[in-house]
């Protein structure tokens, strides 16, 4: 029987938290690291709107999840593994999980109330467990070199550990979980193949809208926005599809919602994200938004932000403009003036 690491490599498994980093490389790095102590963290912080797949796995396949973590503990010879779990999931699933982790090296760690979205970022998560201020650190060092208490630490998403369990028992067939949400009839979590297109998923889950719509994929805040002619792609990111009825949602409201999220979830460490998200929010609430400044800030965020949160702010907004609003009369002049 092939070794687990080889199997993971062959399966081409990538992270399911959003960053899509090859799982094999991560495991290998931590395994090879020379250190007295090593740790594992299962990231179950799931803080982005419209992403629910981790909860689904906790609900339906907790044994597989625990099996995956245990395999990792053995493989990298970890001293301890933490399940970093958000409050809502903790409330719902801790009893069950606690039962499953008896006699393992796994421990539950409830995400602090103040943690928010940024606590899901790897270095913030480490800070949270160590009891420090919850915000990202400078990289390098990466957690695989110096994570929890300075020890090499393997951090993977819930779904990744679940997949590892399947891979180990030769049951993995390159499927993944998708959260379908928004203006659809059957919102929920579905399992389809890795490379399933957005359109197919909507059709097969019987959620394909009968009205004019657009979707946001790969994250309910940070995900890209596509129009209904662009559904011939894979979902990516954390596997979410949010359907928006064009008629129902006023553009400014949609943008304001995203900005609300980013502004509230910004850790506040760096100027562009702390001030930029605030100013974007301020501008969008003006009677006559200063679009010129709006786009200047959007451009600045990925250029100078400290971490991925700030960098991802323009993703939904710019793609929304490009893919959806370009046909909208109200916004047409903005396009010309701001070179979008």
């Amino acid at each position, binding site marked *: 029987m092939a070794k687990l690491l080889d199997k993971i490599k062959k399966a081409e498994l990538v992270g399911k938290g959003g960053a899509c980093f090859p799982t094999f490389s991560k495991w290998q790095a931590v395994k090879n690291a020379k250190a007295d102590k090593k740790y594992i963290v299962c990231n179950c912080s799931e803080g982005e709107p419209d992403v629910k797949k981790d909860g689904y796995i906790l609900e339906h396949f907790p044994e597989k999840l625990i099996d995956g973590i245990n395999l990792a503990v053995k493989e990298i010879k970890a001293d301890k593994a933490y399940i970093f779990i958000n409050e809502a999931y903790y409330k719902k699933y801790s009893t069950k999980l606690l039962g499953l982790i008896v006699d393992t090296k796994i421990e539950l760690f409830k995400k602090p109330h*103040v943690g*928010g979205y940024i606590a899901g970022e790897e270095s913030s998560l480490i800070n949270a467990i160590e009891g420090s*201020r*919850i*915000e990202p650190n*400078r990289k390098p060092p990466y957690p695989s070199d110096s994570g929890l208490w300075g020890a090499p630490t393997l951090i993977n998403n819930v779904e990744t550990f679940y997949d590892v369990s399947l891979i180990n028992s030769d049951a993995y067939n390159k499927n993944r979980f998708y959260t379908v949400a928004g203006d659809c009839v059957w919102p929920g979590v579905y399992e389809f193949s890795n490379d399933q297109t957005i359109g197919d998923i909507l059709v097969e889950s019987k959620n394909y809208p009968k009205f004019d719509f657009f979707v946001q994929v790969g994250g309910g805040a940070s995900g890209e926005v596509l129009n209904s002619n662009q559904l011939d792609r894979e979902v990516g990111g954390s596997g979410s599809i949010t359907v928006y009825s064009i008629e129902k949602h006023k553009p400014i409201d949609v943008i304001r919602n995203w900005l609300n999220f980013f*502004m*509230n*979830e*910004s*850790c*506040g*460490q*760096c*100027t*562009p994200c*702390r*001030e*930029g*998200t*605030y*100013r974007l929010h*301020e501008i969008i609430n003006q009677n006559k938004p200063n679009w010129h*400044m709006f786009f*200047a*800030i959007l*451009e*600045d965020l*990925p*250029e*100078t*932000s*400290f971490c991925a949160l700030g*960098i991802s702010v323009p993703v939904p907004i710019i793609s929304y403009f490009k893919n959806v609003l370009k046909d909208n009369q109200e916004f047409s002049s903005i396009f010309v003036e701001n070179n979008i």
Partner: protein
Amino acid sequence: MLNNKIKINNKEYDFNEGETVLSVATRNGIQIPTLCDHPDFSVKENCRVCVVEIKGEHGLSTSCSAKAKPGMEIQTNSDRVEKSRGLNLEMIFAEHIEKCATCIWRFECKLLKYAKDYNLLINTFSDRKGKRPVYRFKNAVELDSSQCIDCRNCVDACSVLQGIDYLEIKGKGRNQEVVPTADVRKHCILCGQCALHCPVSAAQEQPNWQDVEREMKNDKKIVVVQFAPSIRVSIGEDFGFDHGEIVTEKLVSSLRELGFDYVFDVSFAADITTLVEAGELLERIEKKGVMPMMTSCCPGWVNYVEYYNPELIPNLTTSRSPQIHGGGVIKTYWAKKMNVDPKNIVVVSIMPCTAKKYEASREEMAINNILPVDYVLTTRELSFMIKKNNINFANLKESKADNPLGDYTGAGVIFGGSGGVMESALRTAQYVLEGPKAKLTKKRLEFNGVRGLEDVKETVVTIAGKDLRIGVVNGIKHIKELIPRLNEFDYIEVMTCPGGCIGGGGQPIPTSKEIVKKRIAGLYRDDTNSKIRVSAQNESAKEIVEWLEDNKLTHKTLHTKYFKNLD
């Protein structure tokens, strides 16, 4: 051979292993704006105004954190860079409420300089923090939240540098705010290191220059100024002199220009302090008093003892500090000599220290209900006054401080650096014990074991056949290392600020370890050039001490008490 070259703006430059892009650029005269970067701390890279374009990198990179690598190609002023930098600066302005009219930073302000360099409107956005409070720490230091740009240097200064942990960050995102801790066991010791490391004017001294201006306008008052030993080698920096250059005489002239009636040098008072303190040390040794004896001329350290280790109160010397001695002598001996009512004398101290503001206001300092020192200005406040009055410091004629309180020894001057108080006391103890005939050669006058910038210096010196076990703590954080081992020492000097007063919370900005070194070297130069280098040989100082004794003022003027502080 290693190819240690990078290209900045299409020109090649050498770099040293581990050097940052910012450092290579600055070393070669290429200017990059910075706000959060400070050599005393590890890089936080949070202000994001030092960004540059590095070929092959995704977004822009912060030059304060990016390490130079062979072959790297960097643009520091492309349109792309200028656009982002400018916008980040404009957003920073919007969280910093400008109070330029009364801000003592006006002439050195980085923000205003950048606004000019980048042709920025400072009011592009509405002021975000207008309603935030000002936190005042006693009468010494304040944190004006309406001006804070969230760089967190003050938090590092208070925690990493000083180990006090009084400041913390509350809330997150746009709601975050640096606040005094809610933990009632922690106290601010007023060292002002937060102010010294703040890149804008948010953490700062509580200013008193306006009070002093008011007093100077009052015809009925004689306004006397006295300046601390360390200022002579630091204030020049604000007027284009090199770090550590001795500018005593220009300083004196500038004070006269400003309108002070008399100018005295606290180095003289430091000689008195030395006499009192060395005397007490010898007495404690002889009479088996509480040992080790500890210095108390640093008010930050006194605050620390009163809050955190009140059991050490008996160890502190009862000697008052040089500024209080100076003020006391002015309002007793000198007032008598001049035949003026001490009530009509206003004493202003120019100090490297923010905690001195509080020390001067302590009730127990009063001599017959009159406080020896009325106002304390920091070095920075004085620089500001000089600039505000258009006094051309560099071109001033030189002049000497007034007598009799101007005659100082080299021992008084070195009070300004870590180990100086100790060395000064040892010189006098040696002189007293061995008698005036002792051969005090240069070698015997210089106690190298107490010099330098190590955190804790330990040495044994032999004076008149007795071994004295000496400890010198440089930076308040390190007192924690000595407290469990106090019985291994006879005499300990503690200075709260790294480097001693020379690195004090009221000194010119920037202050860094490198700069502190140069300032200290300046003090030792002044000492070496002095004709008299032992306080016990300062005849005027001795005469005044005797006069105080004859007039039954010794206790009130030269000694003090300490209290356990629980607030």
